[in-house]
C-alpha cells in the first residue's frame, strides 16, 4: 500500500477545524459532536438526543466532505483488494462497539478528552490499543504487504 506523504501542518489544520466544529456545536447547541451518537439519533436507534439537529450535523458533514473529496479524491481499497467479509465484519464491530462503548473517535477522542472525562480517557486508550493490536495481528497473518 503506497501512502503519499502528508505535510505535518495538514493534520494540524484539519484537527483544528474538527475541534472548532465539535466545540462550536457544543457551545451553540449544547450537544456533544460524537458521530456514532449523532448517527444513532438520526436513525432513531437511541433514547435521548435531538433527531433534527443530529441529522443536520451529519448532512453538513456529508455535503462538505462530498465537495472536498471531489476536489481532492482519495483512493479507497477496491472491492477486489480487500475481502468483503472483513470489511463487513469491521463495519459491524465499529457500529456495535461504538454504541456499547457510548462513543467513537469524535465523541470520546475529541469531545470527551477535551472535557477530561475519565470514561473517555479509558475508552480512547482502549480503542487505540485494540486498533494497533489488530493492525499488528493482520500484518503477521497477511505479511508486510497488508
Amino acid at each position, binding site marked *: 500500500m503506497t501512502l503519499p506523504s502528508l505535510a505535518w501542518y495538514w493534520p494540524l489544520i484539519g484537527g483544528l477545524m474538527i475541534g472548532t466544529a465539535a466545540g462550536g456545536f*457544543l457551545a451553540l447547541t449544547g450537544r456533544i459532536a460524537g458521530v456514532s451518537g449523532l448517527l444513532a439519533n438520526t436513525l432513531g436507534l437511541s433514547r435521548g438526543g435531538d433527531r433534527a439537529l443530529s441529522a443536520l450535523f451529519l448532512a453538513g458533514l456529508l455535503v462538505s466532505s462530498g465537495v472536498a473529496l471531489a476536489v481532492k479524491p482519495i483512493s479507497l481499497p477496491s472491492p477486489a483488494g480487500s475481502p468483503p467479509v472483513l470489511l463487513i465484519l469491521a463495519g459491524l464491530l465499529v457500529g456495535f462497539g461504538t454504541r456499547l462503548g457510548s462513543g467513537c473517535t469524535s465523541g470520546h477522542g475529541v469531545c470527551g478528552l477535551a472535557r477530561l472525562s475519565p470514561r473517555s480517557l479509558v475508552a480512547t486508550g482502549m480503542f487505540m490499543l485494540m486498533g*494497533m493490536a489488530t493492525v499488528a495481528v493482520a500484518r503477521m497473518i497477511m505479511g508486510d504487504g497488508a
Partner: protein
Amino acid sequence: MIRLAAFLSGALFGLGLVVSDMANPARVLAFLDVAGNWDPSLALVMAGALIPSAIAYRWVRARNAPVLAAALHIPRQRQIDRHLVIGAAVFGIGWGLAGVCPGPAVALLATGQTFALVFAAAMVVGMLLHWLIYHFRTTEGSP
C-alpha cells in the same frame, strides 16, 4: 438558527476530516501500524482538535448554558463500566480491520464507492443489533 449551526458545524467537521486526510483509511491504518511505517498524522489531528474543543467546553461550562439552546446535554455517567471497556475494545478491533470510524464512514458515503457503502451499511446493522439487544431488553420497567 440552531439548525443552521448544526449544519455548519457538521460541514466544518467534514471539511476537517478531508483536510487532515483522516477520511483516508490508509492514513488511519498507518497511524495504527506502530510496528511498521508509522504515520503520526492522527495524533496531530487529535492534538489540533483538542485545543479549540477544550476551550469551547470551558467557555460554555462557565456560561452555564449554550448560546442557542436552553441546556447543556453532557453525559452524566461517571462510572467506568464493563460496557464502556468492552464496547471500546470491540470498536478498536473493527477500526483496525478497516481503518474507518463513524465520522469518516459518513464522509466517505459521498464517494459512492462500494467500500464506503458496504462499510456504512454494516456499521448501521451493528448499531441496530446493539439497539435491539440493549434497548428492548431494558425497556420494560425503565424510565
